[in-house]
């Protein structure tokens, strides 16, 4: 049995390796991101030369100036790819990590923007990831913009969203048009079902392919060496996703 988390990690790995996207030589992974971290490890363990900087790694943390060093590296253009999520994400790839209702979150307060209002501009590409795919998360227009998906020409910006991966599907993002496009459907999902669960409008081909299944080789990497790498930082995640023999 393949866990959804394993499928999502493999889908993210395929996006990292997308030959049409700018090269990912140095990837940083921020707080509480076990599935993106697993995807990065998968790229590395498949043998691709990539440097991973995992902000929340306790032993052997790559930064000796804390998160300040991550932002300085990114400011210089030395981080090629970052992952961001959002309490809300809209059809123009705007992110809301702040909250809903009256500023700064009178109805629901999310934790806050973290570094999104900088990273989203300064990385050549960002992969958006949010497992919950529902109309309350994927909205037509975010209540507050913590980081905009697009910027005018007089604002320095290296890149924007490459794609949005959810628990139901993969969307690609067309920055020229400022629109998402349904790229692939995870097993058990239909185009109509995704449409109903999505609060923003997007483009869609007449035939939408399925998100490919993880290969046996990828599953072996995830459940073996990648689990071992992630155990210290994400013990609960590793136990839930990779140690399911008792539950299976």
């Amino acid at each position, binding site marked *: 049995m393949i866990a959804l988390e394993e499928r999502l990690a493999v889908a993210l790995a395929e996006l990292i390796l997308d030959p049409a996207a700018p090269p990912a030589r140095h990837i940083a992974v921020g*707080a*509480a991101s076990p599935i993106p971290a697993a995807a990065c490890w998968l790229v590395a363990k498949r043998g691709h030369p990539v440097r991973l900087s995992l*902000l*929340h790694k*306790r*032993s052997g*943390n790559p*930064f*000796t*100036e*804390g*998160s*300040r*060093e991550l*932002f*300085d590296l990114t*400011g210089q253009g030395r981080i090629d790819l970052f992952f961001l999520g959002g309490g809300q994400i809209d059809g123009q790839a705007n992110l809301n*990590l*702040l*909250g809903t209702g009256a*500023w*700064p*979150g*009178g109805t629901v*307060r*999310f*934790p*806050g*923007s*973290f*570094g*999104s*209002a*900088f*990273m*989203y*501009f*300064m990385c050549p590409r960002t992969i958006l990831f949010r497992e919950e795919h529902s109309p309350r998360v994927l909205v037509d227009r975010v209540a*507050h*913009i*913590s*980081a*905009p998906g*697009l*910027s*005018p*020409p*007089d*604002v*320095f910006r290296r890149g924007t969203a490459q794609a949005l991966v959810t628990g139901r599907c993969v969307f690609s993002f067309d920055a020229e048009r400022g629109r998402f496009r349904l790229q692939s459907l995870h097993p058990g999902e239909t185009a109509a079902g995704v449409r109903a669960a999505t609060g923003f409008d997007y483009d869609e081909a007449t035939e939408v392919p399925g998100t490919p299944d993880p290969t046996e080789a990828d599953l072996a990497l995830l459940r073996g060496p990648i689990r071992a790498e992630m155990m210290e930082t994400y*013990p*609960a995640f590793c136990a839930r996703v990779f140690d399911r023999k008792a539950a299976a």
Partner: protein
Amino acid sequence: MITIEAMAASVPDGAMLALPPDNSLPSVALAKALVRRGVRNLRLLGVPVSGFATDLLIGAGCVAEVQSSAVSLGEAGFAPRFSAAIRAGSIVMRDATCPAIHAMLQAAEKGVPFMPLRGLIGSDILLHRPDWKIVQNPLSDVPDRIVLLPALSPDIAAFHAVMADRDGNVWLGRRRECATLAHASRRVLVTVERFFDGNLLEDERLAPGTISGTYVEAVALAERGAHPVALLDEYSFDAEYVATYARAAQTQAGFDDWCAREVFGRAVAA
């Protein structure tokens, strides 16, 4: 070297108190001592985000304002007393974004009035920060808007380190962003696990992870003073303790019981 209660007593009501987040040496021991002292109207600065100690201080009614890029308990979820205080409107929230906090402290460290930062333009955070200004890049011939952030000198910075020596030098290990915080702040209060016999700056291997006693006003001994947060390779994150807190603090009454037990050491009727 002073006691932690004396250290807490030296923090005046209304001070801007800068705290590092849960992955970078917060002094939870000092936060608990501040709750016991009954400090009021603190203006907390998350460097660059806020965690357990901030939620604790908010729950105990010690906080008037939070400036931070996020307030969260990490894997244990949203910070419950912070969220409740935002809903109730009982604290002022000044949202920032992580590198902006670092940049404001770096400006103070250098003694310059502001630091420019990319990004931010188009974020609603900027609309709510009248102290952050957009200017045309004066060195560019083409339209290029950029944000200027004012220097920020917190009244007090507090963190928990592994060790300090008798000269007030403090060893941070690789968490050297706390050095920038120390350089930028008017006063620096540090709790430590233990004292180091000798001078940290005379050891070539320890010196790069050390901040000079020049910046440090006082050091207090607090064993396991970061708990439940991890401290370098000394001890790991106590996820169960934080999860228990997160459940209890869903309500003010639950928080009060937790606080009586864990901060004041009182037996609480079951």
